């Protein structure tokens, strides 16, 4: 088909006739089609045309060193399209940035595949997903750029992209990197505020941004966990150490450190308890002691023989619990005794040890009840100082009933 600028191109040399082997070719056979007289200057398959090259640049290249009058004639033939037109160029560029993005991404993937040795994947992407890149998308919607100025304005549009059209150029990068980043769950915020470092994928249940996913994929699952756990190790040790009043920044705990702190707390507690004139008994304590070992549970009431345990019965109904008051040190000593017995019995697990285990639980409940009685007495006599210390250093989770 005749092209627009056929007349501008020198005609191809006619094919020579009378070849050496002409007599071997059967005369009845259809002769070969003649070589096209000239290729269309606008044909992007021309070997001397750079893809994406503007018409104006092609004309300049075709007539370089040739007849300038012919060149001007060719430029004039382009008509008003050859005139510079900024706004359509920029708009085309901006739209092509959106439309050409999938193609650009695939090109990048293909390039990276080539770079990392996966040539088959790269070739496959090029063969089976030939999406247009930004330049090609611009050509699809607005044709080839008519001159270099239009090409330049399209580049400007591509560079600025859809930012001004959507929200603002400066926020575009941030928007893209944060796209899909979900809100962190409250537990993550608590852990973060405590000083722990968390793997991003576990922080939110609403998904995470492309950027975070990419970095985590590159990092590797197992190694990421190991890295974060090692990073959190000194933080965890320090938090635990601070809970027992060891100096801040303790990153390694020893048995001696812990036993020293325990001895210090025991001495403090003994001093506090000693300051009481006496531990006055109350009805709350008597009720709590009557209920140890779940003796007043629904099961115990419905099946009294099944639930009956003479050792627990002996503990719960001991006349010791009915005294009007106890010497403070004796009460504290009885708590320690009950806890020691409980920890020994609670270690008895398995067939044949159910009764010992149940007794251990009952002894623990009794120790808690007596501890609470001491705490109530402390509240009554020294409400401000002692309880703050006691709460701070021991595991009191509920306020003792006053």
């Amino acid at each position, binding site marked *: 088909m005749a092209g627009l600028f056929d007349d501008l191109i020198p005609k191809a040399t006619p094919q020579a006739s009378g070849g050496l082997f002409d007599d071997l070719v059967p005369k009845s056979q259809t002769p070969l089609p003649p070589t096209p007289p000239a290729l269309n200057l606008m044909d992007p398959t021309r070997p001397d045309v750079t893809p994406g090259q503007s018409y104006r640049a092609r004309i300049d290249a075709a007539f370089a060193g040739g007849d300038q009058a012919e060149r001007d004639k060719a430029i004039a033939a382009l008509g008003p399209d050859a005139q510079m037109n900024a706004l359509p160029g920029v708009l085309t560029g901006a739209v092509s940035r959106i439309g050409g993005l999938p193609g650009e991404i695939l090109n990048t993937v293909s390039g990276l595949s080539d*770079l*990392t*040795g996966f040539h088959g994947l790269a070739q496959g992407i090029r063969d089976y997903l030939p999406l247009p890149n930004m330049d090609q998308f611009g050509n699809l919607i607005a044709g080839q750029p008519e001159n270099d100025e239009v090409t330049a304005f399209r580049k400007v549009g591509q560079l600025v992209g859809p930012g001004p059209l959507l929200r*603002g150029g*400066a*926020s575009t990068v*941030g928007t893209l990197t944060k796209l899909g*980043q979900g809100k*962190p*769950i409250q*537990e993550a*915020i*608590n*852990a*973060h505020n*405590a000083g*722990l*470092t*968390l*793997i*991003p994928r*576990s*922080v*939110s249940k609403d998904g*995470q941004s492309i950027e*975070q996913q990419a*970095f985590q994929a*590159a*990092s*590797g699952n197992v*190694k*990421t*966990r*190991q*890295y*974060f*756990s*090692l*990073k*959190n190790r000194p933080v*965890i040790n320090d*938090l*635990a150490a*601070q*809970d*027992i009043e060891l100096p801040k920044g303790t*990153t*390694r*705990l*020893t*048995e001696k450190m*812990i*036993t020293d702190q*325990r001895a210090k*707390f025991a001495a403090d507690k003994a001093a506090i308890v000693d300051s009481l004139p006496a531990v006055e008994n109350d009805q709350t304590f008597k009720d709590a002691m009557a209920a140890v070992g779940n003796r007043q549970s629904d099961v115990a009431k419905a099946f009294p023989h099944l639930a009956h345990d003479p050792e627990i019965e002996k503990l719960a109904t001991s006349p010791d619990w009915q005294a009007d008051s106890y010497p403070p040190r004796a009460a504290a000593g009885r708590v320690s005794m009950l806890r020691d017995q409980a920890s020994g019995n609670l270690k008895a697990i398995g067939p044949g040890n159910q009764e010992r285990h149940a007794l251990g639980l009952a002894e623990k409940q009794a120790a808690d009840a007596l501890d609470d009685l001491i705490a109530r007495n402390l509240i009554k006599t020294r409400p401000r100082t002692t309880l703050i210390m006691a709460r701070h*250093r*021991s*595991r*009191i*989770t509920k306020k003792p009933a006053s």
Partner: protein
Amino acid sequence: MAKTYDIADVTDFTTGDVNAHAIHKLSENGRPLSGNLAKLAEAAGNFPGSTQPTRLINGMEHSSVVDYYLMTNAIAHGNVPSAVAVALRTAARPYLSSKFNQARIMQQPLGPEPLPGHPYTFAPYQAQVQAGANASRNVRSPVLGLRHLPPTLNALNLYLAGQQ
């Protein structure tokens, strides 16, 4: 004093490390916990991957055998950029765990608490501080999430804040 027993129970005295998963186990078994131990139990229960017992990890190689294979293969074929790309994998972990990135995923601002009236303080943020709002949450600069900004960026911030 009870806490000393709890911590002794969950500490590996060989390495001197506290096992956060064991604290979580104590909590699951009904042990009443408070303070930092309660925080650690909650964190270990929700984020086991970030609080693994370190004795099991026993040190860590930053590159795996696959990394070494890929790097060696790339270098043997003269593909230096590919080798560099594999080597850069190790840089992803420090980035993910950096204070900058952690603050970003927690959607919290970076940097120290600014003083009211600081010239570089982001203006809406400063207003919230003066209003007595919880300053360390919810408000941060749209640019980079930084609290302290030079005046030029602050002007951009004000513009972007107006757009939101």
